[in-house]
């Protein structure tokens, strides 16, 4: 009797194990830290199942800290998920250098050959000449403006030069509308105007501060703080202490808002619809500079242990296809650079057209370009300036930023 029971139990366990292994063998695990897009991911995974017959199991993490800890622990234990999101820039290089991330050169060869992607779209995901990710999003950082506020202030054309932008700001101010919405909310936003002003005055210095060749207390940086401080002195910015930046702009607190294109969806969900806003690339302050824009890229990487699985190949194929890009755009409002896909909203279409017409160069966002060890400390200093935007504070901020920067590069 005992023996029969034991056999039955063993049989049941074997069936359960075999069933489980069959089920998990066909699934592709996909982990990310973008819980706010979880619903959108689920729509895309449903589309992947319907169109490509591949089962992608999405797991969101609530915070970036939890997520990083999970990936770092998974990597140490050799149990990485099949596919997962990461960040571009220096932290991307660190991840690739572990040797646990799959080389996707062949996948990109197909993506470019199909005419769906430009080869340059892979630049953000390149380490030592090889490509290690496919895009989750490519967001340009542009000036969003409220059409109604522009009308109220009598602004009829989108500013094309820095002087025109300043004239528009002055008109808005005269009409009782604060020109620019900017806050230190959640502690990470301080770099937005800093990166834009430096790129618009000295793009070489913008690149230089990221590799330690240009100091944070050098002349190009000082000039940025002088312009920034002057804009504050003129009353062009909203209260930096607001804790509802997006809601404020959607509610009409300012005429313009410098942000990544992904904010368009959030503005819509807060009542400011696509037809009520427009967008333009911020003009250069130094007039003879070539057209440029800050770009934020979100990579999806594949574990080196999973790349040869047929279901992972299928998932990658769907994700990078026009159908995949359209499903993602429809679900999340994000653009991932697929040339044959429909633009998720008119703002993205307009910016793509402008970039194409002006051969606009893309510069990596400061947040990703700066060494990850310095991100938090440096952005805290920039926030400190925004809370007290005088040149006295700027001098102190520059000196502290450079001390941190010099210390970091001295130890590399």
């Amino acid at each position, binding site marked *: 009797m005992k023996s029969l029971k034991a056999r039955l139990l063993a049989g049941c366990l074997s069936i359960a194990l075999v069933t489980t292994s069959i089920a998990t063998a066909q699934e592709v695990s996909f982990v990310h830290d973008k819980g706010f897009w979880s619903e959108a991911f689920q729509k895309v995974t449903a589309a992947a199942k319907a169109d490509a017959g591949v089962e992608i199991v999405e797991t969101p993490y609530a915070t970036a*800290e*939890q997520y*990083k*800890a999970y990936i*770092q622990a998974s*990597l*140490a234990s050799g149990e990485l998920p099949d596919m997962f999101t990461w960040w571009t820039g220096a932290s991307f290089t*660190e*991840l690739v*250098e*572990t040797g646990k991330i799959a080389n996707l050169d062949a996948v990109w060869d197909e993506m470019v050959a199909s005419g769906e992607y430009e080869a340059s779209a892979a630049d953000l995901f390149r380490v030592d000449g090889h490509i290690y990710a496919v895009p989750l999003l490519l967001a340009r950082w542009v000036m969003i403006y409220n059409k109604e506020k522009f009308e109220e202030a009598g602004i009829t054309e989108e500013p094309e030069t820095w002087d025109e932008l300043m004239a528009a700001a002055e008109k808005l101010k005269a009409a009782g509308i604060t020109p620019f919405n900017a806050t*230190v*909310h*959640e*502690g990470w936003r*301080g770099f937005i105007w800093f990166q834009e002003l430096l790129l618009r005055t000295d793009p070489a210095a913008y690149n230089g501060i990221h590799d330690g060749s240009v100091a944070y207390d050098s002349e190009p940086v000082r000039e940025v703080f002088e312009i920034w401080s002057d804009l504050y002195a003129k009353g062009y910015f909203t*209260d930096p*202490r*607001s*804790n509802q930046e997006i809601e404020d702009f959607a509610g009409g607190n300012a005429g313009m808002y410098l942000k990544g294109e992904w904010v368009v969806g959030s503005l819509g969900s807060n009542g400011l619809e696509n037809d009520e806003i427009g967008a333009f690339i911020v003009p250069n302050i130094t007039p003879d500079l070539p057209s440029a824009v800050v770009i934020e890229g979100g990579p999806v990487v594949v574990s080196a242990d999973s790349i040869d699985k047929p279901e992972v190949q299928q998932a990658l194929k769907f994700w990078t296809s026009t159908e995949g890009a359209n499903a993602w755009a429809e679900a999340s409002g994000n653009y991932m650079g697929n040339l044959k896909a429909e633009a998720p909203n008119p703002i993205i279409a307009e910016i793509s057209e402008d970039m194409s017409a002006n051969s606009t160069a893309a510069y990596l966002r400061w947040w990703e370009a700066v060494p*990850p*060890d310095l991100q*938090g*400390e440096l952005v*805290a*200093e920039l*926030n*400190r300036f925004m*809370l007290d935007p005088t040149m006295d504070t700027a001098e102190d901020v520059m000196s502290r930023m450079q001390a941190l920067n010099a210390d970091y590069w001295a130890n590399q």
Partner: protein
Amino acid sequence: MNEISQKDQAILARIGVNEVEKRDRRRQKRDFGVALLFMSPALLMVCGLLLAPVFYNVYLSFTNWRKFTGLDELIGFANYERMLGNPFFGEALTNTAIWVVASIVFPIAVGLGLALFLRDVRFSNTFKNIIFIPRILAPTAVGVLWFYVYAPQGLLNRGLSAVSGQQVDIGWLYQDNTVTPAIIATFVWQTVGLVMVLILLGLAAIPKDPVEAAQIDGASRFQTFRHVVLPLLTPTLLVVTILSVLAGFTVFDLLWVMGASYPGQRSLSLAVYMYFEAFQKGSWAYGSAVAVIIGLVVLSVTWVQAALQQRVDRMVR
């Protein structure tokens, strides 16, 4: 001198003393085995979930574990040396000291005052319940709530504007000189209810005789409190102090939520600094070293308090 002679041993063996001793030893062994069996689930949990991670954390603090590498690379005291030279650590340490002192002084002073006041007033139970309510809220929820109270357009500035008749626009959570006091005030608001209840229990346990004797001898209310009630309340106050010190050292949720937009957030306390280094920067080994220092400081302080507690207990007896 104390050795038992052979003759005595023979006598003990004859009357069966050795057998009794052996039997007792066997019983003790068996009892210990049974006790160990009953304690084993708890022991396993303490060893597996408490002691093992603590020792592993100490080991990690001597490694070079950063993000993806260095877990098996021992670097001695390098993380501790780095800590000593880091200005953020110094600021976090100073702030933590301020927190600990404040978390002892304010909740106990306010809790004691409330307990004494509410002992004899009408509807005291209602007041006690109202004061205790914040204690049952999650610290994160309390942090979010007070974040909006302290906001530039928040309840506090509006109230001050209404009282002063002038526009008050203080960025309570954005300025070096106001951020820590503002969060400490929130901490006191949340913790004072528990402190008050513990002190009320202590007051209820004080025998009436010495108090009545003091009053018959003509002692004023203050003298009675100062020379009779307070000494008898000391054991309770020591327990409350230990709880407050631990709360002060380990406070994290309130600081993380309320200090999110403050530029110097990482230096708000040692616990926040540790989280920042380990989880945001991926400096796991360095974060572990900070955790070891927090643990050592807490252990030292609680050890001193435990010694004090023993001395007070002996005095009371």
